[in-house]
């Protein structure tokens, strides 16, 4: 096991990550016979409370270079082992469609914690200096962010 994988396992085993699992906020696919779930990939699902969307979304996280580099996440079709068809990506609000943005790319999410998005936006380290992924960061921040997006707080209805 290389150092990058060791760091990831340490973060996955942390109380904060494990508490999210025990509360059903997110979880891991533990089928390590799947090609899409072998290092540097890891399938992680995040629940979703938005009506008319899926109850949970799987993401294929690629942890190459973790945690010097950010992870890269792709909405994933767990049945077919491929990128989730675009029509099934989360949508319905401007804020969701900014992040889940297949018209931009289908191999990353439009956030400054995603390796693909960071590499394609040279101005982001300056523009989002307080938010952008920094060496040593923890993927829990990315997962918490996605969980917040997929579980907006509302009071009506």
């Amino acid at each position: 096991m290389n150092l990058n994988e060791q760091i990831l396992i340490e973060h996955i085993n942390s109380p904060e990550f494990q508490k999210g699992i025990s509360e059903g906020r997110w979880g891991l696919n533990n089928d390590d016979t799947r090609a899409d779930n072998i290092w540097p990939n890891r399938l992680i699902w995040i629940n979703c409370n938005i009506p008319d969307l899926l109850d949970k979304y799987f993401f294929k996280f690629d942890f190459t270079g973790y945690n010097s580099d950010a992870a890269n996440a792709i909405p994933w079709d767990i049945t077919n082992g491929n990128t989730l068809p675009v029509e099934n990506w989360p949508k319905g609000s401007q804020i969701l469609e900014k992040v889940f943005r297949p018209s931009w790319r289908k191999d990353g999410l439009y956030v400054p914690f995603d390796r693909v998005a960071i590499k394609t936006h040279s101005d982001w380290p300056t523009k989002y200096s307080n938010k952008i992924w920094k060496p040593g960061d923890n993927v829990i921040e990315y997962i918490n962010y996605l969980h917040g997006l997929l579980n907006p707080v509302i009071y009506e209805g």
Partner: protein
Amino acid sequence: MKSKKFYLDGENFDSLKEGSLEIAKTVNQLLEEFNTSEAESTYVFINDEESHVDKNKTLEEINHDEKVDIFCHRCKKIDIKVFYQNRTYDLIVSSNLKGKIILKKALKEFEIPNSESVKLKLVANSANGPTILDNDRIGKFVSYPDCSINIYLVSKDNWQG
């Protein structure tokens, strides 16, 4: 001897702790065992309950679940002032209250429809302060003896480039 698993968090904790302790032990013993500073003057809350528990009770007495969420803080209540545009909303809550409950109260107070509320989040201390996540206990952002905080209802990040 039967044990109970717990998550332990609180004021000035660097990170969430996870552990397990015999159910016959008291909350006070748990605090001592896990080196919680200021244990004597700390209020202890469990799960999402807004009232604190008697620290002399055993882990078995405080609840019957296999696992319990424990939050410690020297402030029993916290005075919150929520700022949104030119309006403010004052409320006093348990230091155990989660961000999502405060957000819901603020959205209701400011009568913000769902179509707008999904674009908003709470941040602490200033309009550019740290995000208060849905599951964050408000006490995490407050240090005794100042049991008060200003929080801001602001737009979620809108990444552009």
